[in-house]
């Protein structure tokens, strides 16, 4: 059986030989044109003049377009129609595309784009959360508020009251392949689009609107991305639309790829947050009442900010049962890049808020941080509900925490860390364990659907297609394993093909960790349809009941007859039986009202626990992760090797967000960290020296594809244990709570150490 086998990534042999094709590797005709945007250098203001004469005259330039030259929709937003492809009169951030250069080479286009003279009557930009709040610059008419019980009253009555503020930075995706699109114009004005996108259907939709044609005139294909992480959910729209309007204008193939600096300056990132909290706490550390206020920096356009901010609210409880809670979320509009989807989609920001509260409680009450966490855990089987009213049915974190504390020798190591801290004045250590409970499903319920298309050919080979996209997570391989298992075939007989809106229409973005859950089920449904047809046919021919026909080991057994799968397919074909089927799946049990904040937004939860040990240098703030131990719940894993890869990569990326990855804008709203020289993603030497990752042995209680669980996003939040460990190391420096901002760069750690030593936590 193929499902459950730890097989390598389907394209591994192509990657190690350099034969795997990304957008920029696709052969193009010699007259292919290349595009670049001219960008706004101001964060806010009105365009009073645009002198593009030198751009037009530059070497290799074929045409230059501004908003006035766009014949149809000038819009690349995923929802709110507030994001023009090219600025219309007003600019909203430094890096906003203002004009489009179409040239004979990538370099000619980029060089020419620098020659534009845009005159802007500058206005005072709104850059920070405080400025936006003061100016009431926001999306939606006021804050969203979710409540359960009476938080204020519970806090009042509690023995202890603890409050604080966490400043939480954003994050650049740094997918290694930058954004890219390539469009081939077809006869009759149709467009064939290749895009590095997580969302082919949205690209199709935006391109169709931009060329004034129905969606059927546009076909979008995506074989793979060189990383996505949410950054290619909506941010690829601009490139695909630009290529399509340029191809429409010139009749030639058009390609656009951002170079790294442009990519970082133009595209949105993870939302940065300020999280204010007030907790009422019982003497044993139990939270009696809790209030959170989320200030969310959304940037200049709405993009996906509302569901991101919602998901942050939906993860404000993480693994902890709250009886009286109030979460207030302000979605603030600023003159910065439009913040967008990023692995976890707000979940990590929501979750770190309450992890911070746990550490703060432990510090103030002199309790053990893990004990505080455990006393607040949901209780399995108690029918407890989340702040939004969903019953937590399968809470397995108690058992997982027990298992991990034993396997990583937590108690003994904790004692060693304390001992070390008593004896070493300069280097301080911290060891923290944090849990993850992450809700699986799109919170926009209608997105929880998927389609598939499966063909069986006369020779028994299988062509597989579905709406999910491959960004390195191994989705294609997992889904192929599903198909191989259904047909009882070796994996080599299944052909994985590029995502293609011409094959499976109306797809959702590959996001919310839902790729294998949704598409695996859709593919299974398609395979079952074909199997049933073959079984009925062979049953009739060989005098066996259709439901007794078995598909296994590359053979089909009907009564006393055993055929190869190829013979069975040929026989069905001869009998004029269709060997092609579509499959469809929609997630059951969902019911969610996002305005009231009540219902069941999630089909199930995925769980994990991580224990991280760190050391800090109290003289410089430098810090290292020494060891990480992880136990993660992927249900009955479809492919343990790929799942463990997601967990390792997710943890490192999550820890990166909270330690080395710092985004800095200057007072004029210019992003200063727009290249890997200044923006530090984890390098090979940064990851923990000791790194143990194990999968929890258990099935999904819900009926998912072979009882597996989604694994794309949840492990990202295991990285919070690194931040918590750093807080505890700082805590060892003095009497007051370690008020450490994130990312915990050396600068931030040093500042927190000095405050803690001075007793000013």
């Amino acid at each position: 059986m193929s499902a459950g086998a730890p097989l390598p990534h389907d394209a591994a042999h192509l990657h190690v030989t350099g034969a795997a094709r990304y957008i920029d590797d696709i052969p193009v005709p010699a007259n292919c044109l290349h595009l670049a945007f001219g960008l706004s250098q101001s964060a806010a203001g009105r365009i009073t003049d645009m002198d593009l004469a030198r751009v037009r005259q530059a070497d290799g330039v074929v045409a230059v377009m501004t908003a006035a030259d766009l014949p149809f929709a000038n819009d690349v937003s995923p929802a709110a129609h507030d994001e023009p492809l090219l600025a219309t009169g007003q600019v909203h951030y430094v890096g906003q595309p203002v004009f489009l250069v179409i040239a004979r080479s990538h370099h000619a286009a980029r060089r020419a784009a620098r020659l534009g003279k845009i005159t802007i009557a500058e206005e005072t930009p709104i850059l920070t959360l405080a400025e936006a709040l003061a100016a009431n610059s926001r999306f939606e008419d006021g804050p969203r508020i979710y409540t359960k019980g009476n938080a204020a009253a519970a806090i009042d009555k509690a023995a202890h009251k603890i409050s604080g503020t966490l400043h939480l930075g954003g994050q650049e995706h740094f997918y290694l392949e930058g954004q890219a699109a390539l469009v081939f114009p077809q006869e009759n004005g149709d467009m064939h689009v290749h895009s590095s996108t997580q969302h082919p259907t949205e690209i199709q939709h935006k391109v169709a609107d931009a060329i004034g044609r129905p969606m059927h005139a546009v076909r979008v294909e995506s074989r793979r991305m060189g990383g996505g992480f949410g950054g290619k959910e909506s941010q690829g729209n601009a490139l695909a639309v630009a290529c399509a309007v340029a191809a429409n204008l010139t009749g030639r193939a058009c390609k656009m790829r951002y170079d790294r600096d442009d990519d970082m300056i133009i595209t949105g990132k993870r939302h940065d947050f300020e999280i204010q909290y007030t907790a009422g706490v019982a003497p044993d550390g139990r939270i009696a009442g809790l209030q959170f206020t989320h200030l969310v920096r959304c940037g200049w356009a709405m993009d996906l900010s509302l569901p991101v901010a919602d998901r942050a609210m939906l993860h404000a409880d993480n693994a902890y049962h709250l009886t009286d809670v109030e979460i207030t979320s302000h979605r603030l509009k600023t003159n910065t890049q439009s913040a967008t989807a990023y692995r976890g989609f707000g979940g990590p920001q929501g979750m770190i808020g309450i992890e911070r509260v746990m550490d703060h409680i432990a510090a103030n009450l002199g309790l053990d941080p893990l004990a505080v966490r455990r006393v607040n855990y949901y209780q399995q089987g108690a029918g407890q509900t989340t702040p939004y009213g969903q019953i937590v049915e399968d809470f397995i974190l108690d058992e997982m925490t027990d298992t991990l504390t034993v396997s990583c020798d937590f108690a003994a190591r904790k004692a060693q860390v304390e001992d070390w801290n008593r004896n070493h004045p300069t280097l301080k250590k911290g060891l923290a364990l944090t849990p993850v409970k992450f809700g699986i499903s799109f919170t926009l319920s209608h997105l929880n659907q998927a389609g598939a298309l499966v063909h069986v050919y006369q020779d028994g080979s299988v062509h597989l297609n579905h709406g999910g996209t491959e960004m390195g997570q191994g989705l294609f391989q997992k889904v192929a394993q599903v198909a191989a298992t259904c047909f009882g075939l070796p994996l080599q007989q299944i052909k994985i093909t590029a995502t293609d809106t011409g094959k499976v229409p109306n797809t959702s973005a590959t996001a919310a960790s839902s790729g294998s859950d949704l598409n695996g089920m859709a593919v299974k449904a398609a395979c079952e349809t074909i199997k049933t047809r073959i079984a009925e046919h062979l049953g009739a021919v060989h005098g066996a009941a259709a439901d007794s026909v078995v598909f296994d080991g590359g053979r089909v057994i009907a009564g006393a007859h055993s055929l190869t799968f190829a013979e069975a397919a040929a026989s069905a074909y001869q009998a004029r039986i269709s060997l092609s089927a579509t499959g469809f799946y929609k997630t059951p049990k969902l019911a969610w009202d996002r305005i009231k904040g009540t219902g069941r937004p999630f089909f199930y939860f995925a769980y994990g626990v991580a224990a991280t040990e760190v050391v800090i240098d109290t003289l410089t703030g430098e810090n290292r992760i020494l060891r990480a131990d992880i136990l993660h719940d992927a249900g009955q894993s479809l492919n343990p090797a790929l799942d463990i890869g997601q967990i390792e990569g997710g943890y490192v990326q999550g820890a990166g967000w909270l330690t080395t990855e710092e985004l800095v804008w200057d007072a004029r709203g210019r992003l200063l960290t727009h290249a890997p020289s200044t923006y530090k993603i984890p390098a090979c030497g940064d990851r923990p020296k000791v790194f143990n990752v194990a999968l929890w042995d258990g099935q999904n209680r819900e009926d998912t594809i072979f009882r597996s669980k989604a694994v794309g996003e949840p492990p990202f939040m295991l990285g919070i244990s690194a931040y918590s460990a750093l807080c505890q190391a700082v805590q060892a420096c003095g009497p007051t709570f370690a008020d450490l901002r994130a990312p915990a760069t050396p600068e931030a750690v040093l500042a927190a150490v000095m405050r803690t030593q001075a007793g000013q936590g």
Partner: protein
Amino acid sequence: MAQVSMTVNGRAASAEIEGRTLLSTFLRETLHLTGTHVGCDTSQCGACVVHVNGEAVKSCTMLASEADGAEVATIEGQANADGSLNVIQQAFQDHHGLQCGFCTPGMVMSAAALLKENPKPSEAEVRAYLEGNICRCTGYHNIVKAIMAASGQDVSALAAE
């Protein structure tokens, strides 16, 4: 315009190019060897690593004309003569040293250069050597493991697979 000639993966290659053409551009656009990837354009990510006269270089940081007359090796020339994967490539596949694969060609080329210099590197030496190669997907663990395995060392102690 300038004439450059070099040997790429054992084959003679020459062309008339603009003087400012980077080696990465020459490989990708003139020779259509697109396995050499460009991830940052500025000598920081390592996706573009190739060998020039046996040394690992970031091809986005070298002019094609600087490689005039040189022996250049790219990812496309790494497989064994019969087309099967070489030991490093095979190890990256077997030990899951890749996800999106965009960093992989550069990683394999850096690994090959390392193992030529130091056939049995320690884990710390592998990590130090790879400081110039960024991977955003894997968290590096399986990459390090693949390289250790390719050097013939036992990696069973290197925890998780």
